[in-house]
């Protein structure tokens, strides 16, 4: 759907954003795409934001599936906002979330100093930061088991095996600035459902993106009502914790947000 959302809104939803030129309608670059009634072959002229797996296609033709293919014609140049659909031996196909003609708004999508992969990573980190209830820097002073010590052996392969870390706060970058100490729960399990979650250790210092409302007690209900202050937070996403002496995406972001103050 072109033009119903702004370029910035579309760029927030789409993973693979590129400037391209429509080469063929009702066509595909991949034999796996049998129904070409909604697809077109589009040449990627410039990649604006991209995950690594889609970052190799500048100068190549790819297949784009449109919700309404009547909105494009051969020769059209546009910025396409897309998500991954199909990875084959002969290339890739993506689904269009929308497109806009090149212009000042689309030109503003990509800071000139950043490569497309970094650009997407930074956008993701910013969204992740915006979704966090608190962002703090501090030191882990203890880690303990959380759960019923009398519970029998668990044979649930996706059991998170919760731990509870106590963090002495050095600085609050977002959220309740009155807090000096905070409880953070994390899954110690290495199961595929949890293996990317940070595994916190006593003595580690760093930056925490903290999320409230996750129920760690075994049901699907939220632990606390929306808007209430939780008595603990969770870190589940790999970017929810970053060691202070290994600057990464969190510290990079904080250095760019006025008022958040990095140490």
């Amino acid at each position, binding site marked *: 759907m072109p033009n119903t959302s702004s370029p910035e809104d579309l760029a927030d939803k789409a993973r693979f954003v590129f400037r391209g030129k429509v080469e063929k309608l009702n066509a595909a670059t991949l034999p*796996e795409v049998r129904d070409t009634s909604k697809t077109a072959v589009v040449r990627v002229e410039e990649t604006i934001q991209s*995950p690594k797996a*889609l970052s190799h296609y500048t100068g190549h033709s790819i297949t784009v599936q449109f919700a309404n293919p009547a909105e494009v014609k051969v020769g059209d140049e546009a910025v396409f906002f897309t998500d991954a659909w199909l990875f084959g031996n*002969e290339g890739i196909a993506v689904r269009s979330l929308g497109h806009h003609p090149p212009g000042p708004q689309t030109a503003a999508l990509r800071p000139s100093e950043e490569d497309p992969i970094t650009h997407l990573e930074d956008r993701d980190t910013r969204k992740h930061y915006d979704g966090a209830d608190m962002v703090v820097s501090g030191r882990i002073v203890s880690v303990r088991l959380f759960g019923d010590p009398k519970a029998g052996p668990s044979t649930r392969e*996706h059991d998170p095996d919760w731990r509870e870390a106590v963090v002495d706060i050095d600085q609050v970058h977002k959220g309740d600035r009155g807090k000096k100490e905070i409880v953070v729960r994390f899954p110690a399990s290495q199961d*595929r*459902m949890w293996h990317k979650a940070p595994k916190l250790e006593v003595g580690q210092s760093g930056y925490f993106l903290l999320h409230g409302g996750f129920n760690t007690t*075994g*049901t699907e209900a939220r632990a606390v009502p929306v808007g209430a202050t939780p008595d603990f937070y969770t870190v589940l996403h790999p970017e929810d914790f970053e060691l202070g002496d290994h600057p990464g995406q969190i510290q990079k972001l904080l250095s760019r947000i006025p008022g958040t103050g990095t140490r």
Partner: protein
Amino acid sequence: MPANVMVVNLIPRSLSGESNPDSEPNLAVNPANPQLMVASAFTPNPGRSGDAPIYVSTDGGNTWSLHAIVPSDQMTADITLRFGSSSNNLYAGIIRTPIVSNAPRLNILRTNNVLSGLPMDVLVDRTGQGVDQPYIQAATVPDGKGGSVDVVVCGDNDFNHQPQSATMDVSGNAGTARAPFKNSVVDVRPAAGGDAPSIRPAIHSDGTVYGAFLRRVSGTTNSNLRYDVVVVRDDKLAGSNPAFAALTDPTDGLVGTRVAQNRLIPFLNQPVFGQERIGSTLTIAVDPRSGQSGTVFLAWADRVGKTDYTIHLVKSVDRGKTWSKADLLTVTNATNPAVAINSSGVVGFVYQQLTGPFKPNHVSAANRWVTHFQTSKDGGTTWNDLVLATTPANVPPNNPPNVTLPYLGDYLHLMAIGNDFYGVFSANNTPDPANFPNGVVFQRNHSTATKTLFDVDGVTHVDVSIDPFFFKVSP
């Protein structure tokens, strides 16, 4: 590669740069068109967002591509796949992400066109206290009115039923828009704790449906858990009331034949066994031939010594009432068994065995994961062994801070259509011909001369990882 054996690495060339641990594979071949097949693994959407992907082949498994059509955020936490016998409908049982609580979320899905690019439809969406490891089977059967219906049976470990958590989600008409499903508990005995995660169904077109599960009988720690191996049966396409109550144990008179009792099956959710975890290993298959639904094969793994993990394969020829006293096969230090019977009555049996000196929590260059495919033309008396893969068990390392489980998978899959066996397994992806004695085809960029993987640029080296491999054997 021998003419009757095909082994193909599933990673398409456009993903040559990936080094994800693509473990725990599953496979569905469309019986109505065996050129069309789909496979799954713990493969995330390479776009780092959107729907989870499955692998698709439209040329009988020679080439594969990855399609993001599973409605789950980037990847699933479990997935199994099956086609109806003649409906062209594909069904999936998944544990859906994102994680919204402690409780795993079951979805049962369907599509009638895997190539459309449209996300699969959701037929069942259940969480509550959580549901785990859906293992799905499907069959298209006559509806008695001149048409046909899809019967779908999905075994799952449903924590909403405690402690007897072994259940089956059943639909007698899953191809319709409404696709009604009913969840039935199949473990009726008092239990000492939750059943193990593996709950497996097997469907025969004559209406016989078997189910197998591991019922906990005792245990105070994860190291001393003991289980009965139980088989249940339903003779009306899992539509009886009560369902799966056709077999009773000759000793206690309760529903479900206890094929083996009080077996030690530790649940060790750490990389203790060739970098893999252990704790729940089970497979069941029925002879698909007309008039042969009474012949059923069952395999599980338990510990018979101090540190081993041993597969036992047994057989019943009287509809699950009694079972072979001795194992047809006993395989020490092995996991991921899967059994299937073809249209000639040949039994296929795949498993992955850890070779070399075994010490719990330790792996070395002397250890290998060897994927065997055995066939028997005499009902399990004698066997012919094919080694599909023999790969280093210590590479890639599964060490902190990057431990991920399962390493190879808590299951793989084997099925038969006509005379052919089709299967999938996960293994170290080093492109070394010596690792694949019956041949292999890699789609992703590689050099067998230097035993190296390359990124899409054909130059940049890519680390060895775990990949899914499709295989087809025509005995």
